[in-house]
């Protein structure tokens, strides 16, 4: 962090110009921090990208089966009911969580100005997590599913992942404990929140559903709570932490308002944890559960507006950076998707709208908005920013980054749009008493072929991205120092 130069302000923003005399010292410190973190962070990135490729392939198979049920139908482990959860698990726990943890470790290390010690513990954590996940997804594909949507991983495999997480989370906490910066940046708030919330809701939910006292519908209540937390209290805060770091860094100006950021964080923490029950709308639960969920969803407007205001005003006048900087292009796309996903989330929780799109692919569209269009895009931006600092060279080719962006942005947007249209048209048919249920399905199905095609684009985009990352691991790239940009802005950027 460059913020050492402003000891008089507790709320030092992320990027204050460095006083020249300390410049060299800060640069040395940063490179020490980066080289200490390089090993584990690159392992997190590498495994997450491997999972991203697995998830893209599983996503394509899942999508194909929606319009061609005969596709690969005689392979038991690839039947829709097995491959669909495997896809979601690979996407959330494989790609999203691992890349999120890698980015978080690096951010914590940088923001707390502490070089990482004993990186082997983090590596061990990653090994446990990956091992548990391979076992978990393998079980689901082999026909051992707990039957709880979102929590399919068997207890033993989930326990392995939990142990892995504890090693990783503990290291994050230690970095915070030994921080050398008096002010605590807004990114650190979100990271501490995510790293604290995850083990609690993961542990509570997985243990609770195995308890004999927890019966019937309560298991569904816990599953809804868990799924919502996984996206809102784990992935979203990590995504926001990265965006709160990257945007001010790359546009080289401080966060617009720390007070807004603070309001945003606390309302987010308070209401975010209460939104889950809106998922059970209309279900066999006492009505007040759902009412609480809807009320919390509506209150989420407060954190959404504050977070967005902050990003927009920080970017204000610097939006041309989107043309030059890969990091900003991905991150900005993610922030816009975050805004859309939040407002769609509020809208979809309202009873009138929910009664149309409940039980349709619209929910899958919402989930992909959060996990792919928002979170993954911000993480791509973060990888483009962080990796050169760890390997000592810059990305080889701006064209490869461009291909990745086009495939990810258009492919992702197409998948989400197709799912949303499918959900809306099926939902509108579902409430038409003259339409049979078979008609509902047929109308919703029209869009799935487009979705499959988009998965092909996304798969290729991810392959190019993985190749590019592999080249970075092999130190094949541009000489270090100047970031690889889409175009030359004619000025020093970062």
């Amino acid at each position: 962090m460059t913020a050492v130069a402003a000891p008089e302000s507790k709320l030092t923003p992320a990027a204050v110009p460095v006083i020249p005399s300390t410049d060299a010292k800060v640069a040395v410190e940063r490179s020490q921090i980066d080289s200490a973190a390089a090993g584990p962070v690159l392992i997190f990135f590498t495994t997450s990208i491997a999972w991203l490729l697995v998830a893209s392939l599983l996503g394509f198979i899942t999508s194909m089966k929606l319009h061609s049920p005969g596709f690969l139908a005689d392979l038991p482990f690839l039947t829709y009911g097995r491959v669909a959860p495997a896809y979601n698990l690979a996407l959330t726990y494989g790609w999203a969580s691992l890349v999120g943890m890698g980015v978080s470790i690096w951010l914590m290390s940088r923001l707390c100005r502490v070089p990482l010690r004993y990186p082997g513990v983090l590596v061990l954590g990653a090994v446990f997590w990956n091992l548990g996940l391979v076992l978990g997804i393998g079980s689901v594909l082999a026909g051992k599913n707990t039957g709880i949507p979102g929590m399919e991983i068997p207890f033993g495999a989930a326990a392995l992942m939990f142990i892995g997480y504890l090693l990783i989370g503990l290291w994050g906490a230690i970095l915070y404990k030994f921080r050398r910066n008096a002010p605590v940046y807004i990114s650190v708030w979100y990271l501490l929140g995510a790293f604290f919330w995850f083990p609690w809701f993961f542990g509570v939910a997985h243990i609770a559903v195995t308890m004999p006292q927890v019966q019937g519908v309560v298991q569904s209540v816990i599953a809804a709570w868990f799924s919502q937390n996984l996206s809102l209290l784990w992935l979203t805060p990590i995504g926001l932490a990265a965006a709160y770091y990257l945007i001010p860094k790359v546009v080289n100006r401080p966060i617009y308002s720390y007070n807004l950021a603070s309001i945003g964080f606390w309302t987010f923490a308070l209401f975010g944890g209460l939104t889950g029950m809106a998922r059970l709308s209309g279900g066999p639960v006492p009505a007040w559960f759902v009412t609480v969920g809807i009320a919390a969803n509506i209150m989420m407007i407060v954190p959404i507006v504050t977070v967005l205001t902050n990003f927009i005003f920080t970017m204000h006048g610097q939006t041309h950076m989107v043309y030059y900087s890969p990091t900003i292009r991905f991150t900005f796309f993610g922030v816009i998707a975050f805004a859309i996903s939040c407002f769609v989330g509020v809208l979809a929780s309202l009873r009138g709208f929910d009664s149309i799109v409940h039980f349709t692919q619209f929910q899958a569209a919402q989930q992909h908005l959060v996990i792919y269009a928002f979170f993954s895009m911000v993480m791509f931006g973060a990888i483009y920013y962080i990796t050169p600092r760890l390997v000592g060279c810059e990305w080889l080719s701006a064209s490869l980054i461009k291909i990745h962006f086009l495939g990810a942005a258009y492919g992702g947007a197409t998948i989400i749009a197709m799912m949303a249209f499918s959900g809306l048209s099926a939902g509108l048919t579902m409430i038409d008493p003259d339409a049979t249920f078979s008609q509902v399905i047929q109308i919703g199905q029209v869009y799935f072929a487009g979705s499959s095609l988009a998965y092909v684009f996304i798969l290729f985009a991810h392959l190019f991205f993985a190749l590019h990352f592999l080249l970075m691991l092999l130190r094949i790239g541009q000489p270090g120092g100047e970031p690889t940009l889409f175009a030359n802005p004619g000025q020093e950027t970062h």
Partner: protein
Amino acid sequence: MSRSSYLFTGIFGTFALSCLALVVVPQVQIGNLQPQVDPESGEAYPIANARKGRDVYAAEGCFYCHSQQIRDEQNGLDIERGWGPRRTVARDYIFTNPPFLGTMRLGPDLTNVGTADWRNEAKEDPRKPARRNAAWHYLHLYQPTSVVTESNMPPYRYLFDLRKIGGERSLDALNVPTKAGYEVVPKAEAKELVSYLLSLDRTHPLNEVKAPAGAPAPAK
């Protein structure tokens, strides 16, 4: 350090509130429901359903496309579509762990698929089978489009064996074209799954559910 302690108190407090409101309180409120016992006949509903087919239903991920919950008239047309006579409530599921409520409907709701009245066709559609019995379900699992032409359900041929006919044809052999001298018979998993599907019936009246307007009063 006080700033840190505020931060941690807040992070902990918001989580504790979420966990209390959405896990602990629901468990206290609906975690101890008991079956409803008819004071005259002593008949209890629901009763535990320990059919192995539940595991097959979970393993094959049936619940990703089929829900098992009937919503009331304010929340959709579940009852009108013929999926059940009344909405389901928490008590219907006290012995089902997990309850397979479902989040998506890429296929019809199966809450009451074991009952004779269950239908997914329009009310007067002649294609509705008199009853979806075991033979119907086997055919439907083996080749869905053979009984529902427009079905988008994947075929589950791997739940069946192709067996050489030795002497008599098996009783449960499927009436599908296959190699001469061979027959298609359900594996154990298919039998368990179908037995589970045929057991699905949550039409028993419950005191906390009002029968929907126009529906016949529950039989005494």
